[in-house]
């Protein structure tokens, strides 16, 4: 087991360096000089240009620059935003809880609906329920989520006026940002109505972001269940006279869960990509919207740093899933 963990960790290092290299290269392959971009329309004198160039280290050899960038990254130094002048690292972790909160809610939504849907479809294979659920799942899987978001806004915010269109909470509530998680902070503030408001703001973004993972989980659960239901031990369980609920819920589902957990782990990347669209549409102040805004503002240090942090986060999650998988399924370790 230790060998397995170590070998997985070892593959992490070159990938990490590669990811750092890409985000490092990003600012240097851009058309145009980053310093001139930063100066904006006012322009620069030659002396000032040389001064700034020295300040950012652009006048030194590439490998020295990369080494400094890498050591900076390892110490949590990703440079400062051109626009706000604040450290990129701090900005990222100030906004990250918003994305995390939304992603967790979306994942809960996807799992809570997707697992039972997959099980029901598998148990009723070929019947009406199976067809209906799997057709719905395929539609969800094919959904352009930015359009789905607009449709939900038309119906639930426009026509029915049930949910707000944007933001995380109504502006009448104000309280200190203790944890960054609006659901927790709103309860902690003790203001009546704050929690309800936070929940109402979460509903539509959660549905939008959770739709594709939901479809993927439902499909995966169904096919994993079908595979397991054909196994001998299920027949044994049936022959023993166990109730269908116990067979499907305990014997089959537990074994079907392994591939499903992998899929859940691997959808983290999908979630973050979806967060870009979802947050932009619902003006959700998280990482996705921050990245898109920074791309449009040409705030290169932010784009560079954000890209790196997001990639590292996806890598850590994938690594964790891999290791968990090794724990659950001993066969994997022996590769």
């Amino acid at each position, binding site marked *: 087991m230790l060998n397995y963990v170590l070998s997985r960790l070892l*593959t992490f290092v*070159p*990938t990490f360096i*590669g*990811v750092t290299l*890409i985000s490092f290269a*990003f600012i240097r*392959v*851009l*058309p145009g000089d980053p310093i001139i971009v930063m100066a904006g329309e006012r322009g620069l004198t030659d002396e000032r240009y040389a001064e700034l160039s020295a300040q950012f280290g652009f006048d030194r050899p590439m490998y020295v620059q990369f080494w400094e960038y890498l050591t900076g990254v390892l110490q949590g130094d990703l440079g400062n935003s051109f626009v706000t002048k604040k450290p990129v690292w701090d900005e990222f972790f100030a906004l990250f809880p918003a994305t995390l909160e939304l992603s967790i809610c979306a994942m809960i939504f996807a799992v809570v609906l997707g697992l039972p849907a997959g099980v029901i479809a598998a148990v009723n294979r070929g019947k009406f329920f199976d067809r209906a659920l799997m*057709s719905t799942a*395929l*539609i969800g*899987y*094919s*959904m*352009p989520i*930015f*359009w*789905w978001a*607009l*449709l939900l*806004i*038309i119906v639930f915010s*426009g026509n029915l006026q049930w949910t707000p269109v944007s933001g995380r909470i109504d502006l009448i509530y104000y309280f200190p940002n203790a944890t960054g998680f609006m659901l927790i902070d709103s309860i902690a503030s003790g203001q009546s109505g704050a929690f309800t408001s936070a929940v109402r703001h979460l509903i539509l973004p959660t549905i939008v972001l959770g739709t594709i993972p939901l479809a993927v989980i439902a499909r995966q659960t169904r*096919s994993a269940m*079908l*595979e397991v239901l054909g196994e001998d031990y299920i027949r044994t369980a049936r022959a023993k006279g166990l109730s269908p609920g116990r067979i499907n819920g305990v014997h089959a589902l537990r074994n079907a869960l392994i591939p499903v957990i992998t899929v859940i782990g691997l959808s983290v*990347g*999908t979630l*973050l*990509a*979806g967060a*870009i*669209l979802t947050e*932009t549409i619902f003006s959700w102040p998280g990482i996705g919207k921050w*990245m*898109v805004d920074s*791309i*449009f503002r040409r705030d290169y240090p932010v*784009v560079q740093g954000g*890209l790196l942090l*997001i*990639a*590292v986060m*996806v*890598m850590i999650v*994938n690594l964790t899933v891999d290791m968990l998988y090794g724990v659950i399924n001993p066969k994997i370790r022996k590769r």
Partner: protein
Amino acid sequence: MTVTLSADTAERPGRLREFWFYFRENRGAVIGLWIFAAFAFLALFGPWIAPHDPTAQFRDATLQPPFWQEGGSWTYPLGTDPLGRDMLSRLIVGARFSFFVGIVVVSIAASGGIIVGLIAGFAPKWLDTIIMRIMDVILAFPSLLLALVLVAILGPSLTNAMIAIAIVLQPHYVRLTRASVLAEKQKDYVTSARVAGAGFFRLMFVTVLPNCLAPIIVQAALSFSTAILDAAALGFLGMGAQPPTPEWGTMLAEAREFILRAWWVVTFPGLAILVTVLAINLMGDGLRDALDPKLKRS
């Protein structure tokens, strides 16, 4: 659907016939195929079918609803957008952009990915490791984010969006091809080809590759729909096709501020994307069933 097999017709049916036999069993896939055919037809002949010029602005008919609503007319069957352009014509002509995106992205990503995957599968271990680590690096970035950043570097346009999406999708082909190559390489027919004196390239492209194609074809169908979705998403974020191009995602972006006043400018382009992507995914499922006998029974 009755198949009669007598002793004298027991020879193996042609590959295409066998494929069609299994493909046809999946009703959804056949429906998907028909929708896809219609989509391809519109992509090819759109400009001649569309009732109006997709960029012509009829200033006295802005935001007209579809014909079945009050105020709508048959002149503009699906209504007009805020600039008075005919929605139906824009949707029809827009089909060609999505189709084009799908074809180009899949061709670039698949051809590049297959070649790199073949090399990785046949290469010595050190080269294989380097290639796969590079692919891991690309896969570490969420695809849409990487595409978005690449387009920001290259400059927003449909061509650059296609390049970016192709780069992002390529690692999947590399992994898939390499995995199949590694599995096939062990088999006797490859050894016998090698013993018979087949050269390196012959082994790669003539002996092994045709036997690795089934999963790659399925992947091609699935990434066709991913490409359309991603290109539309980039268009929606303002980083894909630029206005006034009637690309579906770009149309949605332009329509965003009118969502509460004119539902049709938002609904139809999205519906077009959904139906197209759904049809391709249905087809992909059918392809998988028909090409991969292992999965056929599930």
